[in-house]
């Protein structure tokens, strides 16, 4: 589904990704871990097409197509979803109206007519139940006045509604209490299928207890310095990142 080859990128002239190689197949869950400033969120931003991130080398193939050539909204319509680390507030735009617009755009891209009001409402109710999203928040202005946890849960609700193929969760666990974390994870687990894939960016192993990844990658200084299975996450929890920093300095990459 996603093939990242030797991806280099800079922001404001500063190199932040220094040669990322990663392959994600349908049905897989990949965790991207690493200390602050290692390039985790930058990787998410580059994949989503955020302004200001310049790719200097390498390529990204998504379903065989050049992802980097696509405008952000095209990437989204193609099925790439980014759950934001800091979801944005848009006053006066109701959550549901926003989702209706987004879904209609995505469906139009697939040559499908928009859902009628009844179908949309049904879908919305179904997905609210699935991810345990508070119905009261559905009609409120998009993220306006939402608590940190509510915003993150709204991201998952949107994910459920838009049914992307590749979901990138950028530190969705940060700022969540244990109950919210459990609900968010439960939602994600329900949405997992053999047709979609998840990239879960996180600092902590905690989230990975709930959403069990098939692969764990450690990012450090713009490179993946170690990849492994979920046991790697446990090892990191135990030993911290320092031993990997050492490894990076010696330029050892293990697959």
């Amino acid at each position, binding site marked *: 589904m996603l093939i990242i080859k030797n991806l280099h990128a800079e922001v404001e002239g500063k190199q932040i990704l220094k040669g990322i190689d990663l392959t994600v197949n349908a049905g897989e869950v990949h965790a991207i871990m690493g200390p602050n400033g290692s390039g985790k969120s930058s990787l998410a931003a580059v994949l989503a097409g955020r302004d200001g991130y310049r790719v200097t080398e390498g390529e990204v193939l998504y379903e065989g197509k050049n992802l980097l050539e696509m405008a*952000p*909204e095209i*990437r989204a319509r193609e099925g790439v979803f*980014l759950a934001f680390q800091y979801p944005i507030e*848009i006053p006066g*735009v109701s959550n549901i109206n*926003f989702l209706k617009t987004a879904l209609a755009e995505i469906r139009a891209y697939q040559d499908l007519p928009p859902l009628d009001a009844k179908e949309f409402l049904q879908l919305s109710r179904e997905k609210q139940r699935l991810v345990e999203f508070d119905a009261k928040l559905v009609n409120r202005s998009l993220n306006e006045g939402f608590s940190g946890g509510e915003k993150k849960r709204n991201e998952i609700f949107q994910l459920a509604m838009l049914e992307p193929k590749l979901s990138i969760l950028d530190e969705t666990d940060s700022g969540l209490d244990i109950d919210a974390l459990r609900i968010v994870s439960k939602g994600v687990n329900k949405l997992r299928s053999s047709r979609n894939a998840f990239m879960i960016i996180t600092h902590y192993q905690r989230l990975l207890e709930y959403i069990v990844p098939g692969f764990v990658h450690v990012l450090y200084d713009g490179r993946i310095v170690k990849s492994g299975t979920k046991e790697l996450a446990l090892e990191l929890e135990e030993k911290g990142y320092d031993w990997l920093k050492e490894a990076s300095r010696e330029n050892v990459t293990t697959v």
Partner: protein
Amino acid sequence: MANDNEIIENIANKEYEFGFVTDIEMDVAPAGLSEDTIRYISEKKKEPEWLLEWRLKGLQAFGRQKLPDWQNFDLPRIDFQKISYYAAPKSKKKYDSLDQVDPELLATFEKLGIPLSEQKALAGVAVDIVFDSVSVKTTYKEKLKELGIIFCSFGEAVQEHPELVKKYLGSVVPYSDNIFAALNAAAFSDGSFVYIPKGVRCPMELSTYFRINTENTGQFERTLIIADEGSYVSYLEGCTAPMRDENQLHAAVVELIALGNAEIKYSTVQNWYPGDKDGKGGIYNFVTKRGICKGANAKISWTQVETGSAITWKYPSVILQGDHSTGEFYSVAVTRNRQIADTGTKMHHIGRGTRSRIISKGISAGHGQNSYRGLVQIGPKADEARNFTQCDSLLIGDRCGAHTFPYIESKNNTATVEHEATTSKIGEDQIFYLNQRGIDSEKAVALIINGYAREVLNQLPMEFAVEAQKLLSITLEGSVG
């Protein structure tokens, strides 16, 4: 992908969508303003002597008055002698059905997407169209008549209900109010007249579409709405105008009178030609709009969505004379390219327990300049009067401006006056967030703008709100994406 700057540039290149001229035979008075012109207009309209005299007083007042100098923009020089003060479509005047209406006129409305026709009537709207001065057609008049509601052109009201016109004309906006009001008093062409009898709730939205069409014809509409005790009416005014090189002056006057327990809702969507991207051409929209809550518990609510005109300069106001009467002002004003808006409201609290609410949303893009100017005046007898003002500005790009001039004068220490103001920019992060959900930048901006203006748009009647929402999107198309 286009960056924001490119996109901001695009706004300037967006052509005015409604720029076209309808080719209809016109009866045009020679240019210039004089006693002779006034007499010509009055005679053309077969007006009674008292009205001619009133017009002439207006002309004298106009001669005495000076142009204001307090506004937040340079007033362009206007040669009042170059303006033609009367234009009316020739001959064919009375229509019983749409078939008799000039097909070209209908085609024009079609282009504007205005369903003049029965469809609109079926939707519950009686439309009184002022096509350059003379009302061409009034629908649903018969049905309204059954309820005793009078909804007709101003000229018709002068002929058929002179006692009402005489009683209320100039009672809220006197002919000497300001120079443009004086000009209007002298030369007003036509307009609309509404009377709602005691206790009657007008069952449909009354709607007028104004449209400026003849070159060099200043348009001087006059609207008078009287809601008798305990009655209710919602009135819609919507405008678009064809593209034009020369500036056109529009100096309308609107007077609203709400008697005890009566309510008037007056909604405007204004989309006149704003001039090109360098500020050439465009309408000068200098309008005097004022209402009076004459009796206790009366209510007047102004809602305006102003997207057009080179200069929009008006302050729809309410005189809160009756005890416990309410005045409201909801406004969205958009300026882009070189457009200027200096708009706001005045709330004059005279009676006890009077309340007013002001929600103003300015949107500036390109080189647009947007000023909110508002006066809240609390008189000595206005015990427990309350005002709430919220004044927000939204900036798109970094070459536009937003200005706020709130004035508060309180002569009663039991009154409460609140003022809140914010200024914000459409953030790149907001646009990116929406992009990431599959929404392109253009739609994203439309969504954000409509969200920002929602509190005001919600005040509009349903059908109008949808039009206004589209208009905002079209107006700001290309502004950030």
